[in-house]
């Protein structure tokens, strides 16, 4: 890329200019004249009686974002326009409510910022967009795909990156479309929870958590690196209920979070030293003989070896020095936790986003297990589950075209939400690590990724080492984004295809936390020219087959409702106690599962027991015992944390104008001591910088963060170039490859410094 191109890329990402150009282009195409905001009229405050039942068509929807709560929604439609939504009162988990993000949904389909038509950018990053027809868009893409197949004699030059922007089951049509085209390249793994998934698989044989509603039965709750007050608001009422019944709630987090503010005890642990803390507690429980001897003898393997390790190498004093928590506190909470029956630990996803994250989760699991709290209601080492995800994955399971060639050797990709059970075949797809997307795009060769397809994902706001990603995005010959909004990823794409919101398509949604299942009905017609991911796959297939018959096996006509129906099976009906998917139109259904995971104490491990010593873990190159693992060495003065904001799910929702009313711009948070050392005062504009890159934003001083930390939230604002991925590198966490295809990323093992600008 020459200097001029580089300049235009810089301009595109550095200022909102290209977005304005994009909107101007939409206006020229006549889009703004039909401003969709106009459809969504405000209720007249003068209005008389409003008839809620009978005056609206009411549909069932479900939030498909990557969130614990996966809320079941009731949407009220009048004259073809979504008027307002509520939570489904049938779900005892959400109890008729949604969250701040959920209630912003009503605005989402009608947002003036929505991408309305397929568009093409003349010069990637130039901002010179023009409207094209779906036919033109499909024609350009199909021709390119035929061309790369002819050149490489395979489709491996086609790469897919997709993750959690839409977990509707039918959205696996994107993967299905790739399979329909041949053997392709997939960016696999997950930036979210892989180290913990592997850890729980080694210890328990699967990741499976108690029903969150069962938390009311707990007598002692440790919220460890979890912030439900922001990320699972509906679980908070169960924690409160347990508290009201006398349970003690301890929150362990480097940051004084909103959840910590609601706990009885808050421990400000040194970041990434959670494992040391758990082991120190375990040592004390062992010494005092407070562990559940009968439980470990009956239900586990390797406990004696673990006990020897604790006695030989762990002391409470050591744990205190490592974690920063005073010995007397460790002793007190350890004794209370061991004595309370039942007691539970909620293991958040934050504490496994470290180079020692998997080892940390294993040591916390061990604490729950040795006190006999695994397999009990009100107990459990809670992390997540996939027990209610047994759909047909009809959208995913497509045939390869005849004669398709792929990657010889190696294993095909599998993500954390892949249930396809890929059969043994001569060829496979090519799997690349999603957590090192920039590096993979730059280094993948023979063939390189010539066409990159992006869906359900905002790569440039979510993937790591963004400065390198900007380089990597210059390499593909064609980049296609499927999106609802003009994200930073769309800015660097060649073609953008407008995709439907949940209200405009049919699908199904399960949760990885609670036990409820919801149907998502199409309540309104797709706005403008938006198509669902299934329809896009069908349109591409039609064009491919016209160009080169037999080159794509995906059906050329689909009906999203029919495809939703195809995902159901008898096992799902039985699990949820329903006779037909149509029963879900009456309301969400809850799985007929025991509220306690592992209640029958039949573990999924090779020994069928809880494994304090996991030989499988050792075979995979880790320690057999849940031993302490050292942290990443700091490479700058302050620890950098980039957790979730309450106003978004990763980069989603923050751009909606309704959300902007309450969350106008990003801030970073700094302890007053760290600030004064740098001559920074509250409200200053600061530069957060490290070896990766830099970010400029306003600072807020607060003792909610430790003095050795700088914190800012992940976000994508529509009118602000802010991006925390400028300063986050792609270092891997220890575990994740076993179950999700690639190790996780040590998102919270980042370091930076701050200065006033």
């Amino acid at each position, binding site marked *: 890329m020459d200097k001029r191109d580089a300049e235009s890329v810089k301009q595109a990402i550095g200022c909102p200019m290209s977005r304005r150009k994009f909107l101007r282009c939409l206006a020229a195409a006549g889009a703004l004249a039909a401003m969709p905001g106009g459809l969504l009229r405000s209720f007249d405050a*003068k209005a008389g009686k409003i008839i809620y039942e009978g005056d609206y068509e009411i549909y069932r929807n479900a939030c498909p974002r990557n969130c614990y709560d996966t809320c079941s929604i009731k949407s009220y439609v009048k004259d073809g326009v979504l008027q307002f939504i509520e939570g489904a009162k049938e779900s005892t988990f959400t109890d008729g409510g949604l969250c701040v993000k959920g209630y912003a949904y009503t605005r989402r389909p009608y947002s003036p910022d929505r991408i309305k038509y397929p568009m093409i950018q003349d010069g990637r990053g130039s901002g010179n967009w023009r409207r094209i027809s779906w036919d033109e868009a499909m024609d350009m893409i199909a021709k390119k795909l035929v061309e790369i197949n002819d050149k490489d004699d395979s489709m491996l030059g086609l790469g897919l990156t997709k993750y959690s922007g839409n977990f509707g089951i039918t959205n696996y049509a994107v993967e299905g479309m790739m399979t329909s085209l041949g053997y392709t390249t997939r960016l696999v793994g997950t930036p979210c929870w892989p180290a913990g998934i592997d850890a729980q698989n080694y210890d328990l044989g699967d990741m499976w958590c108690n029903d969150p509603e069962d938390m009311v039965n707990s007598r002692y709750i440790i919220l460890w690196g979890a912030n439900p*007050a922001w990320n699972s608001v509906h679980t908070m009422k169960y924690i409160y209920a347990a508290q009201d019944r006398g349970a003690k709630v301890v929150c362990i987090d480097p940051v004084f979070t909103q959840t910590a503010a609601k706990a009885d005890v808050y421990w400000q642990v040194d970041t990434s030293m959670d494992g040391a803390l758990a082991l120190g507690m375990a040592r004390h429980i062992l010494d005092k003989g407070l562990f559940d001897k009968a439980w470990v003898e009956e239900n586990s393997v390797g406990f004696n070896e673990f006990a020897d390790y604790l006695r030989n190498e762990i002391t409470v004093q050591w744990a205190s020095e490592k974690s920063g*928590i005073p010995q007397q506190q460790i002793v007190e909470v350890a004794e209370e936790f061991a004595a309370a029956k039942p007691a539970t630990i909620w293991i958040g996803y934050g504490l496994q986003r470290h180079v020692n994250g998997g080892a940390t989760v294993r040591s916390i699991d061990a604490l729950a297990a040795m006190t006999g709290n695994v397999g009990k209601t009100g107990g459990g080492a809670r992390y997540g589950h996939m027990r209610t995800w047994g759909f047909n994955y009809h959208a995913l399971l497509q045939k390869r075209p005849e004669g398709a060639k792929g990657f010889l050797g190696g294993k095909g990709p599998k993500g954390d939400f892949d249930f396809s059970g890929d059969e043994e075949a001569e060829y496979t797809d090519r799997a690349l690590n999603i957590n090192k997307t920039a590096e993979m795009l730059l280094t993948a060769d023979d063939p390189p990724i010539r066409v990159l397809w992006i869906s359900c994902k905002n790569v440039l706001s979510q993937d790591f080492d963004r400065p390198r990603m900007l380089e990597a995005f210059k390499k593909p010959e064609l980049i296609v984004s499927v999106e609802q909004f003009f994200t930073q990823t769309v800015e660097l794409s060649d073609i953008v295809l407008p995709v439907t919101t949940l209200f405009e398509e049919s699908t199904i949604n399960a949760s990885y936390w609670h036990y409820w299942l919801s149907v998502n009905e199409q309540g309104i017609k797709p706005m403008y020219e938006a198509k669902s991911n299934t329809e896009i796959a069908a349109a591409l297939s039609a064009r491919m087959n016209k160009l080169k018959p037999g080159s794509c096996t995906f059906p050329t006509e689909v009906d999203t409702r029919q495809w939703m129906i195809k995902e159901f099976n008898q096992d799902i009906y039985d699990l949820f106690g329903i006779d037909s998917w149509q029963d879900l139109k009456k309301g969400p259904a809850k799985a007929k599962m025991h509220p306690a995971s592992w209640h029958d104490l039949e573990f999924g491990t090779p020994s069928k027991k809880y494994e304090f010593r996991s030989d499988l873990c050792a075979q995979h190159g880790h320690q057999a015992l849940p031993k302490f693992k050292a942290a990443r060495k700091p490479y700058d003065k302050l620890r950098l944390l980039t957790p979730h904001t309450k106003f978004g799910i990763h980069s989603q929702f923050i751009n909606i104008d309704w959300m902007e*009313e*309450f969350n106008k711009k990003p801030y970073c948070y700094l302890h007053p001591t760290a600030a004064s050392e740098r001559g920074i005062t509250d409200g200053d504009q600061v530069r957060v910088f490290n070896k990766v890159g830099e970010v400029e934003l306003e600072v807020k001083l607060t003792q909610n963060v430790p003095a050795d930390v700088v914190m800012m939230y992940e976000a994508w604002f529509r009118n602000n170039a802010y991006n925390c991925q400028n300063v986050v590198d792609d270092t891997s966490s220890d575990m994740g490859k076993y179950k999700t295809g690639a190790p996780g990323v040590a998102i919270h093992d980042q370091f930076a410094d701050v200065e006033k600008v």
Partner: protein
Amino acid sequence: MKKQLAFYIDAKRCIGCFTCAMACKNQYHQESGVIWRDVYELKEEIYPHRERAFYSLACNHCENPTCLNVCPVVAYYKREADGVVVHEQDKCIGCGNCIRSCPYGAPRYNPVLKRAEKCSFCWQRLDDDRKPACVLSCPTEALQIVDLAEFDEANAVQYPAGFPRYPSLNPSVRFRLPAMPKMIRRKL
């Protein structure tokens, strides 16, 4: 005492999630910049941790509403049955008297209609046997409706720190104060 509905804000349970504020937007689609219910962060002098304790506030449906008293065109009335203060926007001339006089900042100016508007306590929903949108939405039951005629909560206060005291208006709102955990901070 006559029935008087009031909002009860349990700051001990409130997680400052803004769900109530957005639920109001979802129900009424106010113009950009017009907010009927907002979530206010407590200053550090009141709660020593920034952005960790909040009051969710809207119109307080006062016993003696100043908005009603200053309105020159009688666009406001107070419902006999439940004390809800209703603003009839079709009568409003946009003079701004109510906006200027309310010490709680409840009435807002709608720049498109050039008229005032404010929290209606979702009286249409009340009449349909439904909770107000904000109350229904609260995930922790930190925002509730109570009837002051029979409200008897020992921990409740009418004027907590940070909430302006106007006894002559007698705002129909009650609060429970936020609490703090035992904090164990590491030494650096």
